[in-house]
Each structure stands twice: as structure tokens, then as C-alpha cells.
């Protein structure tokens, strides 16, 4: 048994090693993505370009403009505009916001409790829209309190940011990237190689030998587990070196659960290979069934709780959802089995189910 | 070059890196000949054929096919040659008829000519019953016949067959050679590479290659008398072992 499995493993490794380009991509891609995301994403601060239509032209209106330009969040695009210019300025992407100060601004400030200015926002990107809205409100509040004295707060909030005090997106991103890449490498490579053997007829060749199906599967899968782990380790190491992303919990536990997860991913790949006739189909099915959901629905980038109910249910049958909770917990929170038993059990249950279906189908597909 | 010379090869050479696959080869082939390339695997047969078809650029030397230089008039050469490679490939996911129509279309045959060609060939190669079958489901022998039919669609003046009978049974092989003679009889020149020695006996003329070089050429009977052996197989074995001995001596 050992010898035969070893033969398959060796053959598979030779395949991998010979395909130098793919190997480079498999190994370089994660590091590039880490670098990109690590250096790439700042959550806050962008300079909002805005134009002012000052119909008031009073010291008060100029003071309001100054409080916008003075805080570093807004940058004025100078020019003599009217509100009618807003559409064309938005379309030219020269401004993102237009502030219209009404003619009676100063008079209203003196007599009324509430004075209104008009704010036009290019809200195509809802994020930017929200951002502009928040900062505009802040500036206006600051301006108002500079007129009438600040309001005493009724209570003081003392926020404490746990686990990631600097709110570094890299730390959050690294575990997710590991989950996605392990899935990508394991499921995609498995489904494609097995389908390739079937397509080119070499599977038949292997089958007429005394090797058992289980041995083929083990032999084909071990090299990809290795690659998956190499990838995972590479991500961990590069995140550590580049950004100081910590592993607070037990590395052993992480490796153990990573193995479980990789098995689930491989089972998916195996399952796909029993259905797909060609490599192209195998690839598309794997992408649709595993990578896309892992990317979008597991909570990797977008919080699950914000999604519609249907998608929330869907996310519960995706292995990556549980693995993400586990890996983030172990790496960033430093928690262990005591806290994570529920996701661990769920992951194992899903894994067992998929693996048994895959092996069953694989057996059938060989006959 | 004589008046009935179809193919004239002058000093063709091809290197792959530091490896010389074809080494300064010269020969001529006459119209209507069935011309065989004989050689062990890796002797350079396929490389030579691929150069003649314009699939590989020669490193040195040149050749003409029907007077057309293969280096400068590649496209015109392709119009008049047919080629069936070692692993002639068809679109397995298309039916037989679609495959034929497609390749006919690619050769730019007018629709009416294509129709006639298809009718004639399917009859000649006994493919009628398979016309609407899935290519994938055909037995190997039929696939090969189909492949040959496709290579003949545009009535090529020169037909290059690279191991056309690999893997088919003797009866089909014999059948195949009958077709090859028919083609040659109609005035086409046929190039065949093979390593079935008994097939070599069917050729009008043979060229034996070893490590990129021509080591012997002549008709099968000429070769047998010259080397005093009863079959081409024996001639071949003798020539190759002589070569090997020489190399070992050096």
C-alpha cells in the first residue's frame, strides 16, 4: 500500500515541479496579495474635493468655509460656481461634494435657532457618501458650537478596542487570506488534476494497475496538502515579517485545524472531479462552488450579519465561515478549544459529510 | 531538379538548443511516389516532416514543394499539401460531419466542391455510416480513416503521413495502404514515416535516418540486394547496428 501511494505522490510532485510557472504563481500570489492588502488599504482619510457656492458672502459664511477647509478632511476646488454646475462637476469627477450657503445665511444665524445649508453629494459610492455625510455633520456641529459654546456631554464614552487596538486591517485580512488560498489551492488543484487524468485517459491506465481508489486519492491529495501548507506558512511568515501580524494562540492547534480545513477543501475538489468532464468545467464548478462563496459569503471581507437572511443561511454551510472564526480566534485573540469548540465541531461535521459523499461518488465514477 | 520532381530537399538542418535533430539532409522525391522515412524513435523523421509542412522553421538549408520554397511561400505550400500527424486530432465533441465540414471550410473549398469532396471521400473510405456519429465514440481505426479523409479533402499534391497506422490492427493497416496506393496512383506524392518494417516494403522508395542524418536511400529491392538481406527489417537492423558499433569505436 505504502509503495503504491508513494508512487502516485512522486508522480504528482514531478508534475507540479515541472510546471514551474504555476508553482511560482501559487507561491508568489499570496505574498503579493498580503503586501498589497497590508500596504494597500487604509480605512479612513481621503481628501474630499468640494466646491462652494457662497450666496451669502458674509464674514459668517467665510468662517463656515474656513472650518471646512481648515480640518484637513476637505479640499476646496476653487471656482465661481452655481448649484447648476453640480451635475457636470460630478460627471467630470472634479468634486465629490458641493456646499451651497444660502443668501440669508448670516441673517438666519442671528435670528433663527436652526439654519440650513445645502450639501450636494456624489453618492455613487455609498461609502464615500456616508463618509462625507459624517464629516460634514461634524464640521457643522463644530461651527455651531463655536458660535454658542459647546454642549456639555451627558455621559462620557470610553471605548476599548480589543484584539486589534490599532484597527489594522492587515491583521484582520491575513487569516482570511489563508482560508481563501488554502481553499483555492486545495480544491482547484485537486479537481483539475483528477479531471485532467480522466480527460487524457491516464486515469484508466492507473486504474488497471492493482492500486485501490483510496490509494489514488491519498496519493494525489498529499502533494496538494503540502503545497497548501507551504502557502499557509508563507503567508503567516510574510505577514509576520512585513506587518508584525501575531499568532497569539497555539500554532499546533492552528496546524491541526488547518489540516481539517484542507481536507474539507480537497473533498470538494474530489467531488467536483467526479461530476466534471473537462478541466474547464472542473475549474468553473470549483470557482462557483467553493472559491466564490469562500470569498464573498464567509465573512472574509464582508460581515455576514449584514447580508440578507438567505445568504446568512448559505454562509452557515460554507466550511470557510467556521474556519475563519477559528483561525481569527487562534491567531488574533489567542483563544483555544474551550472557546472554539462549536465552530470546530461544525467544521468537522461538514468535512465528514462532504468527504464521504465525495469518496462514494468517486468510487461510483470509477466503475 | 528533374521535371517530375515534387519535393526537393537541400541541406535541411534543425537544431533544438544544442541538439541537432536533423543534420544537413538532401534528397528529391518524384511525382506519384510513395516515399518512406524509416528510422528509430528520435531519428529526426517527425522533425523533417514538420519542417516540410512549414510547422518548424529550418535552422539551415531549404526545400521546395512543387517548386515552392517552404521558407518564403509557406502559405502556398500549405494549400497543396495534406498532413496527418502522429496524433492526428479531431474535435471529439463534434460529430463526424461537422469535423469534415470544418476542415473543408478552413481549406477554403467552395461549398459545392466541398460537398462533392465529402461524398467522394466518405464513399471511398467507407465512412458513410459514421457521418452523423459522435467523433468521441468512434473506434481508433475509424478515427484514423476519418483523419486521412480530412487530410485529403482539398486534393493535395503532396500528402505527409506521420506514423499513420500506429496502433491499428493489421487488417485496417492493409486497408489503409490500399488507399495510400490509390492516392499515389492519382498522381499525388505520399510521404510516410513508419516503424513497422513490413510496411516499409510497400514503399516505392525508402530513406533510412539515424540521429538526424540519412544513412541509406533506395527502393526496398535495391536496399535488400545491396546489403544482401531478405527483408527490410534485416537491412535496417544491420545498418543501425553498424552505426552503433562505429560510434562506440569512436
Amino acid at each position, binding site marked *: 500500500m505504502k509503495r503504491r501511494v508513494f508512487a502516485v505522490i512522486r508522480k504528482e510532485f514531478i508534475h507540479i515541479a515541472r510546471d514551474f510557472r504555476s508553482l511560482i504563481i501559487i507561491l508568489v500570489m499570496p505574498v503579493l496579495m498580503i503586501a498589497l492588502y497590508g500596504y494597500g488599504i487604509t480605512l479612513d482619510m481621503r481628501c474630499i474635493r468640494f466646491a462652494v457656492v457662497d450666496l451669502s458672502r458674509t464674514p459668517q459664511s467665510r468662517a463656515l468655509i474656513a472650518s471646512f477647509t481648515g480640518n484637513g478632511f476637505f479640499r476646496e476646488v476653487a471656482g465661481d460656481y452655481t448649484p447648476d454646475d453640480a451635475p457636470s462637476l460630478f460627471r467630470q469627477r472634479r468634486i465629490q461634494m458641493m456646499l451651497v450657503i444660502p443668501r440669508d445665511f448670516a441673517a438666519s444665524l442671528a435670528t433663527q435657532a436652526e439654519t440650513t445649508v445645502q450639501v450636494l453629494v456624489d453618492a455613487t459610492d455609498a461609502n464615500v457618501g456616508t463618509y462625507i455625510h459624517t464629516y460634514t455633520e461634524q464640521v*457643522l456641529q463644530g461651527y455651531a458650537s463655536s458660535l454658542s459654546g459647546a454642549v456639555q456631554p451627558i455621559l462620557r464614552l470610553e471605548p476599548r478596542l480589543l484584539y486589534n487596538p490599532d484597527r489594522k486591517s492587515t491583521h484582520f485580512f491575513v487569516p482570511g487570506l489563508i482560508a481563501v488560498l488554502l481553499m483555492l489551492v486545495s480544491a482547484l488543484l485537486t479537481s483539475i488534476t483528477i479531471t485532467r487524468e480522466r480527460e487524457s485517459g491516464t486515469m484508466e491506465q492507473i486504474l488497471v494497475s492493482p492500486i485501490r481508489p483510496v490509494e489514488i486519492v491519498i496519493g494525489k491529495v498529499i502533494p496538494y496538502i503540502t503545497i497548501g501548507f507551504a502557502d499557509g506558512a508563507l503567508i503567516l511568515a510574510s505577514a509576520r515579517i512585513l506587518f508584525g501580524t501575531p499568532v497569539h494562540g497555539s500554532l499546533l492547534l492552528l496546524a491541526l485545524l488547518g489540516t481539517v480545513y484542507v481536507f474539507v477543501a480537497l473533498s470538494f475538489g474530489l467531488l467536483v472531479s467526479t461530476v466534471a468532464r473537462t478541466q474547464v468545467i472542473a475549474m468553473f464548478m470549483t470557482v462557483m462552488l467553493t472559491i*466564490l462563496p469562500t470569498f464573498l459569503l464567509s465573512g472574509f471581507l464582508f460581515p455576514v450579519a449584514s447580508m440578507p437572511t438567505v445568504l446568512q443561511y448559505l454562509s452557515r454551510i460554507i466550511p470557510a465561515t467556521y474556519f475563519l472564526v477559528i483561525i481569527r480566534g487562534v491567531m488574533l485573540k489567542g483563544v483555544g478549544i474551550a472557546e472554539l469548540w462549536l465552530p470546530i465541531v461544525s467544521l468537522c461535521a461538514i468535512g465528514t459529510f462532504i468527504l464521504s459523499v465525495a469518496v462514494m461518488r468517486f468510487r461510483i465514477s470509477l466503475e | 531538379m528533374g521535371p517530375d520532381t515534387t519535393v526537393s530537399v537541400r541541406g535541411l538542418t534543425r537544431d533544438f538548443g544544442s541538439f541537432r535533430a536533423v543534420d544537413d539532409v538532401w534528397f528529391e522525391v518524384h511525382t506519384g511516389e510513395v516515399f518512406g522515412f524509416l528510422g528509430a524513435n528520435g531519428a529526426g523523421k517527425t522533425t523533417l516532416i514538420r519542417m516540410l509542412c512549414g510547422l518548424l522553421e529550418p535552422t539551415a538549408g531549404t526545400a521546395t514543394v512543387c517548386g515552392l520554397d517552404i521558407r518564403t511561400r509557406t502559405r502556398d505550400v500549405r494549400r497543396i499539401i495534406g498532413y496527418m500527424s502522429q496524433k492526428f486530432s479531431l474535435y471529439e465533441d463534434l460529430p463526424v460531419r461537422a469535423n469534415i465540414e470544418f476542415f473543408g471550410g478552413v481549406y*477554403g473549398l467552395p461549398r459545392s466542391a466541398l460537398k462533392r469532396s465529402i461524398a467522394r471521400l466518405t464513399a471511398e473510405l467507407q465512412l458513410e455510416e459514421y457521418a452523423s456519429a459522435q467523433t468521441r465514440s468512434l473506434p481508433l481505426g475509424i478515427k484514423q480513416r476519418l483523419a486521412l479523409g480530412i487530410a485529403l479533402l482539398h486534393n493535395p499534391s503532396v500528402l505527409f503521413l506521420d506514423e499513420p497506422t500506429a496502433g491499428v490492427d493489421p487488417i485496417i493497416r492493409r486497408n489503409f495502404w490500399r488507399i495510400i496506393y490509390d492516392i499515389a496512383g492519382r498522381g499525388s506524392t505520399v510521404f510516410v514515416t513508419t516503424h513497422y518494417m513490413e510496411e516499409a516494403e510497400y514503399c516505392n522508395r525508402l530513406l533510412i535516418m539515424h540521429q538526424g542524418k540519412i544513412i541509406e536511400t533506395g527502393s526496398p529491392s535495391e536496399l535488400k540486394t545491396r546489403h544482401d538481406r531478405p527483408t527490410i527489417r534485416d537491412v535496417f537492423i544491420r545498418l543501425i547496428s553498424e552505426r552503433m558499433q562505429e560510434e562506440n569505436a569512436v
Partner: protein
Amino acid sequence: MRQVFYLMQKEFRQIVRDRFMIALLFVAPLVLIFVLGNAVTTEVLGIRMVFYDGDRTPFSRELLAHFRDSRYFRIVGYESRYRELTRLMDRGEAQVAVVLPAGFQRDILRGSAPTVQVLVDALDGNSAGVALGYVTDIVRRFHKQAAVSMPLPVIPTGGRRVAAETRFWYNPNLESRVFIIPGIMAILLVITTVLLTSLGIVREKEIGTLEQLMVTPIRSWQLIAGKTLPFCVVGFIAAILCMVFIRIIFGIGIAGSILLLAVESVLFILTTLGMGILVSTISHSQQQALFIAWFFMIFGMILSGFFIPIANMPPLIQVLTYANPVRYYMTILREIYLKGTGLSDLVEETVALAVFGTVVFSAAVLRFRRTLR
């Protein structure tokens, strides 16, 4: 020209016979639109919150009610032991914990603002920031309402306010999906053209039919046209389906000129087809083509501003995005789709696409011709 027709006919026959491809063509856009349209949201909802009330007075209960009524928070428990809070957060069952100290009401009435601790799971820095914003907002509302309903000495009256009358153009409800959805067209076009083209060519290489085609008198441009045009058509069908689905599912139509969108798409496809051909020339197997294509596609998408706004990237990477054709197409798509922007305001992007298309496509054709020999 006839040869191109036959090549295309063959390609279409293969596509039509492949039931899977047809399914993919129809299902992929639908799934992508549904999932991306719903999953990709930067809105943070349903934040799991646990509440520690050390005061148990009308004031503390009032503040609690504010949180309970907010659609942003889902209260998963009330804890009376402080230690239990961190345990819940460790297990990920709660993301935010609010701690009201004993004497909360008394301190407010005295005017000596009590300290309310807010523990936030900051793993997801973005969501954490948003959650804190919500908390602040709710406290402000509590403050405002307390001023009305309860006799509070600390609230000064007669403060003046400057209010913003904000109009959110193009996306009045500030839905993040609006921004994302047009980008799906770009994804579909990239997948159908880059991936299918490269795989289509490499597959013929693998099975040997490409060589068979090469000994025919077909010209390389005919071969390229015959191999790429069908996937162009497939891409466009997918894109049109995509637009229809977007209209039906999310009610988002095209604000600008469809003709302009079509022209820009053709320019874009020139680049992606070129990429597909290039990938096929450097790949020996479908598997390899797949990986190389994915590599380019993933970075093309990441650096296009599809998920992550380019303005949020560091300067160096922002410069890098200028070398990414998807970036320009993404801008064009969004501008035409959502704002109805015309050609005059998209000149730079259009020129960029045209230049990319010409350069990449001709480079691809040249390389392809060389590999043919």
C-alpha cells in the same frame, strides 16, 4: 473571410454542444449579481451586543431601549458578571459590550457625566469603527431625548444649530450595491474573454488540432479572429443578460448612453482578448493557462477599484493602477451606468482603453504568429 466563418461556426457548435457552457452563460451572471449585490456591503448591520447594566434605573433602561430599537444592533444577552463579557467576546458571540456603571443615573442628574465603557471587537477594524460610530450616535439621541423627557439640569437651552440639507445624488439611499453592481459586467467580460479565449486556444494546442489548423493555408489573423470573435459574442451575451438581470433584480438601469457603453466595451474587450491570446502563448497546458489567467484577473480586479476604492490605496499602488486597463473600464462603467456621463467627460479613460487595446492586442497577435512558426 470564409475561413473565419467556418472557424466561428465550429467554435459555436462546440459551445452549444457543451450544455455546461450554456448553463454557465446564463447562471453565472445571475449568481454573481445576486450574491455580489447582496453580500458586498460595507454597511454594518446586526452587530451582536451584550449589555452590562450595573445601575438598573430608569435612565439605564432608557439607554438600553435605544440600543434595542436600533436596527444596527442585536442584543444577544444581558450579563451581570463583568468577567463573563470578555468570555463572550473571546468566543465571538458578542462584538460589542456596553458597560453601564453603578450610579449611572445619579451621576447624570448630578451633571458629573458618568463613564460608559464600550468594549469593541476590533479584529475587523472597519466594522469596529462603524460600530463605535453607531454607539456614539445612539448616545447622542439618548441625550437629545433625555433633554425633552426628563428634567435634566445639564442641557443648555438656546444653542444654535447649523443643519445640512443633504442630497445624495445618483444613490439616494446610500446602498453600497449600487456602486458594486455595474462592476459585475467587467468581471463577466474578463472571465469570458481572457479565460475562455486562452483555454480555447491552449486546448487545441493540447489535443493537437491547432497544429492541424496550422498546416492549412489559413492566415494567422483568420485563426485569431475565428478563435476570439465567438468568445466576444459570448461575452456580450453574458453582459447583456447581466444588464437585464440587474434591471429586474435591483431595478438599476443605465443612466447614460447604451451605445457609448457598447463602444467602450469593445475597446476593453480588445485588451482582454489580447490578454487571453498572450496567456495562451505562454502556457503549455490548460491548467497552466488557468493559473496564469487567474493571476492576472485577480490582480486586475483588485487594482481596479472594484472592491477597494483606489483613493484608499497607498500612493505607490495608486500609481500602479494606472497600468491596469480594468481600472479605466470600471470608471467608465460606473460613470455611464450610474451618472449618465457622456464621452466628453470620459476622454482620458477612453483614450487609455484604446491605447491598451491596440498595444496589448497587437503584441498578442505578434507573439501568437511567432509561436505558430
